[in-house]
Every structure is written in C-alpha cells, then in structure tokens.
C-alpha cells in the first residue's frame, strides 16, 4: 500500500475521528462527505467529531487463516464493534483469551500496530480494542 494512502486516514485511524451530520445529527465512522440519511441536504454540513473509544462487540470471529502480514498475530479475534455513539466499525479484540470474547462484551480502543509493508517497510498503526472494565 502506498504511504500517502495510509497517511490520509491517520486522523481516523489514530484518533477515531468520525463525522456528524449537521442536518440530522447522525454520526458516521469513518467520516463521510454525504450523510446516508440526508443526502444532498448534508453536503457542506458534515462536522468532524472524535469518538470516545468505548463500545461493545456485535459479532466476532477467531481468524486462523490470514494474509502473510497478519501471520504472526493468528489466531486473532476480528470483531464488529458498536461504538457508544451508535456507529459501527471493524477491528480486532486484543489482550484477551479468544475463547472469552462474547457478543455484548464491553471494549475500549487502544493504539496498536496494525501491520507493515514487509520486513523493512513502513509500519501501520491504528486502533484495536481490548476488554473494558
């Protein structure tokens, strides 16, 4: 992946920036230019908002067969997480026994290494989630 392609997404991947529709108030992550609810009425009215980082597991899978760059992580827990603000995202659940992950489990965002461009390439960082107390 080209380096600028990853840089462009840093605000959302490092700091969980999403967007809020200035017309209906719906919150989206990652940020959108057009609100799926309001369409054209939302154009130019999308505000940047930072998510709080708390959420719950909506569904999950333990991944055993993964692309080369995730080889060292497997088996790892992939999950869809519903954030407290209502939007959903896909990430990993870490610092947990995979067998202990459940639907409805509360989790919180943590800053982690996501992957890298080969052994000597750029390292990508972003959010993963760990169990929340």
């Amino acid at each position, binding site marked *: 992946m080209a380096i600028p392609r990853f840089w462009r997404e840093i605000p959302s991947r490092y700091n969980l920036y999403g967007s809020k529709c200035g017309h209906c108030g719906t919150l989206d992550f990652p940020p959108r230019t057009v609100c799926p609810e309001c369409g054209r009425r939302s154009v130019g009215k999308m505000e940047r908002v930072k998510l709080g980082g708390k959420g719950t597991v909506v569904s999950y*899978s333990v991944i055993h067969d993964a692309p080369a760059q995730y080889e060292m992580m497997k088996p790892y827990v992939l999950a869809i997480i519903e954030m407290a603000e209502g939007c959903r995202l896909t990430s990993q659940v870490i610092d947990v026994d995979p067998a202990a992950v459940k639907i409805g489990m509360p989790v919180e965002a943590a800053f982690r290494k996501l992957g890298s461009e080969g052994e000597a390439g750029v390292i990508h960082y972003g959010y993963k989630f760990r169990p929340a107390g």
Partner: protein
Amino acid sequence: MRDVAVIGIGETAFGELWDKSFRDLGIEAGLLAIEDSGITAQDLDAIYVGNMSAGKFIDQEHVSALVADYSGLADQHLPTVRIEGGGACGAIAILQARMAIASGQHDIVIVGGAEKMTDVSDARAGEILSATADQEWESVFGATFAGLYAMMARRHMYEHGTTREQMAQVAVKNHKNGALNPNAQFQREITLDTVLKSGWVAEPLTVFDSAPLSDGAAAVVLCAMDRARKFTDTPIRILGSGQASDFLALHDRRDLTTMDATVVAGKRAFHAASLTPEHVKVAEVHDNFTISEIMAIEDLRFVKKGLGGMATEEGETALNAKVSVNTSGGLKARGQPVGAVGIAQAVEVVRQLRGEAGKRQVQNAEVGLTHTLGGTGATAVVHLFGRAN
C-alpha cells in the same frame, strides 16, 4: 422492451486447471455455448465478459478484447464489454447484455465469465478476494473475506439459533449434488463430520464451510425472443432480473444476518416477472460459504428469516424437495472461479429447465432462479428463467 432468451450454454470443467490459461478457458466455454446455440460467430452483435480481477490474478486487464481476439473474432470488430462487480460480475454481465437486446441495440450477444485463480498462491488469492470488501476500513484491520462471513454466521447463530451442524448440512448437500455433475471441481460426497472436523478458517467456519479457489469459465448466448426459435426449439426466457447494492462494509449494514441487497434484488426480479418464490423449483444461490446459502434462501423468501438452517437440515432444499438449491453443487462443490460464477449458475438453471440435467434433473421445473453476490453482499443480482411456451 423485447423479451430475451438464452439459446446456448457452455462451461468448462471447474477446478485447479494448471494446464489451462485464462484464454484457453474463456474460449472453450464460448465455443461450447456458440455450438450449443446453433448460431455462427458472425451472428454475434457484441461480447460481454464477467471478470472479477484478472488484473491481480494474471496481470492482464482489457480481457474483453482479449477474449474476442482469441476467439477468432478480431476482424469482426465487435463491441466488447468487461463487467466488474466482485463475485456478481457474471450475473451483472447477463443483466447488461439482456438490457442491450431488450432495448433493440443488439439481437444476439454472448456473455462469458472466467477467472484464473490458481496462478497465484492461496494466500494471495485470499487477499484478492478480500479486495471486494472495504480495503480501508475492513481489510487493513485484519478482516479476511472468510472472517467477514464468519461474523455473519456468528450473529446468525446468536439471533436465530442456527447451529454449526445446520451450516455444515449445506456443504454436505452441495457435495452430494456436485457428485452428480461431471464438470464439478469436487465430485465426492462428504459427511457432516468432514465439515465439522476440518480445520478452522475463521470461527465458526471451517475449510469445508468455504468454497474453493478455482479456475473455470462459462458462457451463455442471449437472443431476442422473436428470433430465438430460428436457432432452438427450447429457448429459455429471462423472466425478470433484479440488481441491488448496499453499504460496502459489512459493519455499516442494517442487519448482519440479512443481505438487504439480496432482498431488494429478489423483490425486483419477482415483481418484474409477476412471480413469487413459490413458483421457483430450482435455484442456484451464492454459497461461497455455507452461511451464505442459509441467508440467501431466507432473503429470497424461500423460507422465513431465521429458518434457513432448519430448512436445510430438514432437507427442504435437497434435490427434488420443496426447492432444489444448488443442483450443480454450487460454489462449494462445482467450484468458484469468481467471474464465471453468475454465468455458470445460469448455465445450470437453463440445463434444468431444458430437462438436460441428467442424474440431477429436477422434475417439473418451470421456473429457475440464480442469485449472485458481490463482496460480502454490497451487490446482489437475481435472475428468473422460465421455459418459453
């Protein structure tokens, strides 16, 4: 708008075909379809090609012109179109070709689909498949294609009580059908235990819950209905078609256990054909994973939401049961050369409606359906076919 019929079908064997190139496969399927239709290549007005990712699998783009060229048609200068749409590309190609004929622009069109997946490593093939999901907000975070379907499966189990055994029954059934299909990649029956005890790909899905990587091609010849009888006594009419899209990323969808794109595409197709799911006796649905077939039979309204697993377990989708689903063996057993999938589904349904399906023939099938997915359900296409009286 003119009615459109399928007048010719052709497909290669599906499998790990190391001795055959993308060109070999595309041409073989195309020539079989032309021969079956009774037309000559000079009758063709256009070529449509469904292909997911030749650029990544074999470093070749512009495959529609390539197929025309190597089919010996270069000096006919036909318009050629390549359609991309994840796994649904072949089904979209049929829909676009049908519209071109219905509009009066063309009379006779060949629609081919092909994929050559085994020239890259299995790991690379997995990455290419996952490119039909959201690369920026799913794949980067470690989401594999199987992992995304596994999360649908997990949620389906949680909300509807679907079991691993019920999902495994999809694979058992489709292998049983595949054993009757001489072109299938896997022509061997399996047991429930084979599925349950095979290795995890992404829990709760195992290797045997997943369709294989395959090489293969399929083609159909479409013709304006008013000219079809010049070439065949058994034209198969396209009764209705529907296509729909949805959020690209799974996490943005309304319900993880329903593919709204399938629901909408199905409604559009049934509405266009003035039919209901009860009319369908044979269906080829997109079983890239076992959970996909369970969700498809629910979302197409063959069974109520949540009862897909139970219906499968009780044999309602077996050969010559309530609705015969994936008589070809489906993606699971016939194979999954992505670009060819939607076309191969149509080939099977046409074969069934003509009464040419041999040992896996569905009795008294008047209406057949194909259902094809792109990505994790961001695209769905449904076609309804019927015998023309």
